[in-house]
Structure formats: structure tokens, C-alpha cells
């Protein structure tokens, strides 16, 4: 037998089949039902807005990111998630700009994938909220024909706003906060309410999240902690004073589910330790309730997650595992 060409490498010589791109693209796939639900309620407008924001993110990654980073799929996720937290009638250029800003200021400036502190999709959303407060809170009503445009979809930058000829509707949280009305649970569950594209289909989000968790691509502790905290806090508030909404309404309204399942679980911007993940989730849940009930805005998921993102290095440091054969936890390090 002649000696074949042998590979010489340091151990271990085997590795599991999973890869980072596979995780990322699985997240993209799992969002398909959510996108489909958005299209069902908001027609072509939903697809256009999502496409614009994905295009913005991909362009941002191409323009500012390192070569070859598009393949890892993370820019596509950012685009999808950003699109899903925008209203259906948003001018497309704004959606695209949000994507570029989210990638550039939310991710690339920190050093690209893995280095960013804040969820890039939420950075894009926060930028749009600050820059265009009116269009981003103009919520078209659900229904209407598939091909109907629900706003100044094709408006150009610096164009004066046309009076849109579409029916708008308040979001369930807006209705509760400013008019004291509570939306029915069935409508919330099916997404038959006003709101941003991905806020509206609780079932589709839970389905996608469950699939990811089952495949091990999503850490279930974060969404469970967020949702349980919100439910518990809402239950206490509702019991003390019936003016406050019921736990079920709190859970199913607004961007909570999308945020808890898809945004808070972003691996890069959430803690690495399991105990840290519980702390992170509880923190988000508490902030959501505080902002919704006492804040000036009807919705607080975005700011709650961004705020807790900032605490992740500290949470990581405080929850380092206890090394085998030692008494104390390790403290310190680069975080």
C-alpha cells in the first residue's frame, strides 16, 4: 500500500454539521409564514415594503461590509425583520434607507457580524422612527384588494406628502392607550388588526419560532422569559386595577411576539450564558410593560430590546459559569 496524501491538522478532526450560514438561512426560511400572513392582510404593499428593506440591507452590506459577507445570510434576516416592523404604506425609499442605516450604523461600524452591540433591524427601525415619525405611524387598515397600494408607496425623497387615499386604522395598543378600547383576542391571534406588517400574525410567528427552537437555532429561554414576565406583570397590574389591559391582550398586541421570538433572540446581541438569557428576557419584559403602561408611546418593544442589548456585556460578565473544580465564578474578561 502506498501512503495516500494525508491531511495533517490539529485535533479535533471531526465537527458537527451545523454552520452559521445554515442557522441564518433557516431563520430566513422560518419567517416565510410571517411574510405570507403580512401579504394576506396588506397585499402587494407588504411584499413591496419588505422587498425594499431587504434590498436596502443587502445594498448596505455590499457597500460597507467586508467582501463575501452577504453569503452568511445575516443581512437578509435584518432586512426581513426590519420590513416586518414597518407599516404597509411606508414609502419604499424610506424602507430601503432604514435597511442601509440598520446595516451600516447597526452592524458594520462595530466590525460586522458578531461584533454589533445592538440589533441592526431595530437600529434601522429606530432611525426611521426618529426621521419620519408620521409615515412610520400611519397604519393602513387590513383588507382590501391584493393589488391595492396602501400609501405613498412610490413617493420619492423630499416629495411633499400626498393625502393618501387609503383607510387607516389605529393599532390595538394605540386604541387601548388613547381610547381605552381593547381588541378581541381572536382578531389579535389571527392578525386581523392594524399595525406593522409582522405584528399582526401571532400564530405565524409562534410557528416559525417553535420550528427554530426545535432545530436548536433559537434559544427558547429568551422568548419564554420575555413573554412570562410581560404576562405576569400584566396580570398583577390588571388585578390591581382593571383599567390596565389583560395579560392576553398584552401578549398578543403590538410587536411583542415578533420582538420576543425573532429580535431578542438574535444570538449576537443577546447573552451567551443561559442564566444571562433569563435576566435579559426578564429585563425586556419589564421594560415593555413600563413603556406601554406609563410611557408616552403606545409600544415599547423596540426600545426595550435596544436598551437590554446595551446591558448584554455586563450580563455576560456577571453570569460567567463556575469553572469545574473551582468555587468562585470567573469575573472579568473582555465581555
Amino acid at each position, binding site marked *: *500500500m502506498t*501512503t*495516500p496524501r*494525508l*491531511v*495533517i*491538522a*490539529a*485535533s*479535533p*478532526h*471531526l*465537527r*458537527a454539521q*451545523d*454552520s*452559521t*450560514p*445554515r*442557522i441564518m438561512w433557516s431563520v430566513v426560511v422560518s419567517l416565510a409564514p410571517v411574510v405570507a400572513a403580512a401579504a394576506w392582510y396588506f397585499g402587494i404593499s407588504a411584499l413591496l415594503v419588505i422587498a425594499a428593506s431587504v434590498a436596502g440591507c443587502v445594498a448596505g452590506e455590499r457597500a460597507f461590509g467586508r467582501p463575501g459577507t452577504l453569503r*452568511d445570510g445575516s443581512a437578509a434576516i435584518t432586512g426581513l425583520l426590519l420590513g416586518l416592523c414597518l407599516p404597509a404604506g411606508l414609502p419604499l425609499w424610506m424602507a430601503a434607507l432604514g435597511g442601509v442605516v440598520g446595516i451600516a450604523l447597526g452592524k458594520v461600524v462595530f466590525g*460586522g*457580524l*458578531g*461584533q454589533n452591540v445592538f440589533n441592526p433591524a431595530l437600529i434601522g427601525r429606530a432611525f426611521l422612527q426618529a426621521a419620519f415619525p408620521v409615515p412610520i405611524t400611519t397604519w393602513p387598515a387590513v383588507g382590501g384588494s391584493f393589488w391595492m397600494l396602501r400609501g405613498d408607496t412610490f413617493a420619492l425623497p423630499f416629495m411633499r406628502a400626498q393625502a393618501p387615499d387609503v383607510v387607516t386604522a389605529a393599532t390595538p395598543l394605540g386604541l387601548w392607550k388613547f381610547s381605552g378600547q381593547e381588541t378581541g383576542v381572536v382578531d389579535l391571534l389571527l392578525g386581523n388588526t392594524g399595525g406593522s406588517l409582522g405584528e399582526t400574525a401571532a400564530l405565524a410567528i409562534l410557528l416559525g419560532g417553535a420550528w427554530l427552537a426545535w432545530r436548536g437555532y433559537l*434559544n427558547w429561554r429568551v422568548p419564554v422569559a420575555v413573554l412570562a414576565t410581560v404576562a405576569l406583570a400584566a396580570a398583577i397590574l390588571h388585578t390591581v386595577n382593571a383599567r390596565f389591559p389583560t395579560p392576553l391582550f398584552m401578549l398578543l398586541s403590538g410587536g411583542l411576539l415578533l420582538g420576543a421570538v425573532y429580535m431578542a433572540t438574535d*444570538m*449576537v446581541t*443577546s*447573552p*451567551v*450564558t*443561559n442564566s444571562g438569557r433569563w435576566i435579559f428576557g426578564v429585563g425586556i419584559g419589564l421594560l415593555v410593560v413600563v413603556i406601554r403602561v406609563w410611557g408616552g408611546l403606545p409600544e415599547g418593544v423596540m426600545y426595550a430590546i435596544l436598551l437590554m442589548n446595551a446591558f448584554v456585556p455586563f450580563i*455576560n460578565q456577571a453570569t*460567567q*459559569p*463556575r*469553572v*469545574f*473544580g*473551582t468555587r468562585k465564578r*470567573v469575573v*472579568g*474578561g*473582555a*465581555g
Partner: protein
Amino acid sequence: MPFPDELVLPLRQHAGKPARVVVKVGDRVERGDKLAEADGFVSVPIHASAAGRVVAIELWPHIDGSMATAVRLQVDRHAMQIPRPRLVPKWEGLSREQVIAAVQGAGVVGLGGAAFPTHVKLAPPRDVTIHTLIINGAECEPYLTSDHRTMVEYPARVLLGVRVMMRTLGVPRAVIGVERNKPDAIAALSAALPADLDLTVLPLTVKYPQGAEKMLIHAVTGREVPSGQLPASVGVVVQNVGSAAAIAEVFETGLPLIERIVTVSGEGVRKPANLIVPVGTKLIDLLDYCGGLVDDVSAVIVGGPMMGVAQANLDAPVTKGTTGVVALTHAQTGRDGVYPCISCGRCLDACPVFLNPSELGQLAQLGRYDEMEPLHLADCMICGSCSYVCPSNIPLAQLFSFSKLALRRRKAAIA
């Protein structure tokens, strides 16, 4: 397997000082004759695994990747390969020191892979009390089944070895830890258990690295060996099942350790097998006997796929510590690109000693080795679990072995 034409016996096959050669080129030796003697207490002699003639004493490729002085033995094809008649010591009549000397004299080392001289572990320092002897029957790595076969086929020999060790150590209790996926081994040992000893077989959870010494002690006793200390600090001595069988053989036949069970496995081998192999058999001869390698072979690993050493030269010989030879195919070792760490935390879940490989890896890539020390880099046993699970394909364990080396060098430079 049959004797090959040539055997190569490195003087360094064990942890500790290499043996000192006592033969010269041209000498005729019988099977079991001493080729090299122990050089100090933490050292063992090397014996001829077959009758033949010493043709050279020179540097030869070693399975650890280096070149090491070795005795090359031309095997006598016409010899009967019967060892010289020898006195077989009756262990019951021997004192502790005599047993330890006999075990050292037979060249017995830990057969689980580390090849630490067995007799040293039978002579713990006077100031420590050992209360439990743990026998490691949890195979140390995937693919390897040599310990498994030993337990199934030689349960009585294993138990005799345990008995000798218990008496020598003066311990009241011994536990044989076997992973649950080897019910036949558990059954074979349990059926042969002697009634007069406090000796139990403990089924263990199947997980890697259950066979690592500190993991095994934790699984059996529930105690963690303190960071940086030896098992004796929790009153435990760990020996491998193969070593127990080897000790028994010394007192059954009087023969030194000249052959061992080797697992030849992996998708890259045509006919995988567990074989009794003369120490010093070249890997190429061993693989040839197993039908050779498949065309798609990419790596030949001595040891297991997680911690074993990839071989560059198949002329390197099987040593006393060679648990197995695993050949892998390109489909298994193929590597895709490395992606950035996405903080998924899988390595933290996988690390058996609860380190933070994610953070250590980032420090290692930046060359900040000094900062890795307080994060317990020293407790990393390079088991490879973190590299295995990393979806971004970051070579974490590889970085850690390099970091350990870099730290050692840095310290040496300062001192």
C-alpha cells in the same frame, strides 16, 4: 494480528523519562526480552514484542509527530515466538513494594491513551489517603472500542487486576465506571464480580468526554477535583480497564506489556477491527492487515477523532498508549470557511469544565494570552468539544493548545 517483518520500539512510549537502551545493534533478542530499562521512578522499561535481531537504534517517526530514538527489530520469521521461561510471581505473597516493582518491571503504563506509568499511581505519596479506586471503562473517545472489547472478553482478567491494585493501594472500595451503551460489558463484569470485595460496576451516562479523568471522578463520586490538582486530592486513583488487565497478565503469565488491543476504525478503513497488536507494529502494516485505506481517505488519526494526532508518516509505530487508529474520509474532515463568532453559546453548553470558549477564542485570536490565564485556560483539557459544536467553524480547541504553548514560552522567556 500476525507479526510484521519489522518492529520499531521508541524509547519514549510513556509519560515521564524515556527508557535507557540496554541492547546494541546486532543483538539477538527473544520475545519479552528487555530492550531498554526504566530511567528513574517515573519511567518504565521497553521489551521486545517479538524475537528477532536489533538492526538499528536511530531516530524514527513517532506517532506524536516528532522523531524519537527507537530500537528497530528485524522479526525472526522462523522463531516460535515463545518467550523465555520465566518465574511468574505469586502476587498474594508479595509486599506492596514488590508488586509496584513488578508492575514497573513489566513496563505497564496507562492504556487509556496518556500512557502514564501505572506503578506510579499505585504508590501515592504517604500524606494522602486514597479511599476509592476508580476503573475507567468509559471509552475515552468516539470510534474507540478497545476498552469495551477488553471488558467483554477478559472480565476475569480485569477483575484480577483490580484486586491486585486494591490490595497494593490499600483501598477498601473500587468502582468500575462503564458507559450505559455497553450493556454487554456491564453484564460480563457484573457476572464475574467477586463477593469478597467492595467492588461495583457503575453504569454511566453516555457522553463525551465521560472517560476524561476528572469527568469520571465527578460522575462516580460527585466530587470535583479542584482546579490544578490531582485526583489524589479527593482520595481517588483512576486506572484504565486495559491497565488492570495488563497488571493481571503480569501475574498470570509473567509477560511484560508487549502487545495491546488496538481499535482500527473509521470510514477510511476497509475492514475495521479490534486487534491484539504487538507494540512497535508500524501503522502501515496494521492498516494493510485491515484491508488498507479507502481511496477517499483524508486523515489517519492515532487515538480518537477528538483528541488524536493526525499522522504524516504511516511508518510510525503503535506504542503502548495507542488506543486506536482511526481513518477519516474527506467528507468528514472537509472544512468550510470560518465565520465570525455569533455568540450562540453552544461552546459554553458543550464545555465539560464550564469555561467560556467563545470569549477565550476571541482573546486567543487577538494574541491576548495573558488575559486567558485568569479565565482558567489551564483547566482546558483540549477535549475538542467546543470546536466540534462551533457553527462558525472557529478552531477553538486548536487555538487553546496554541495559547497554552504561547503562554508557556512567554513565561520561560521571562524566567
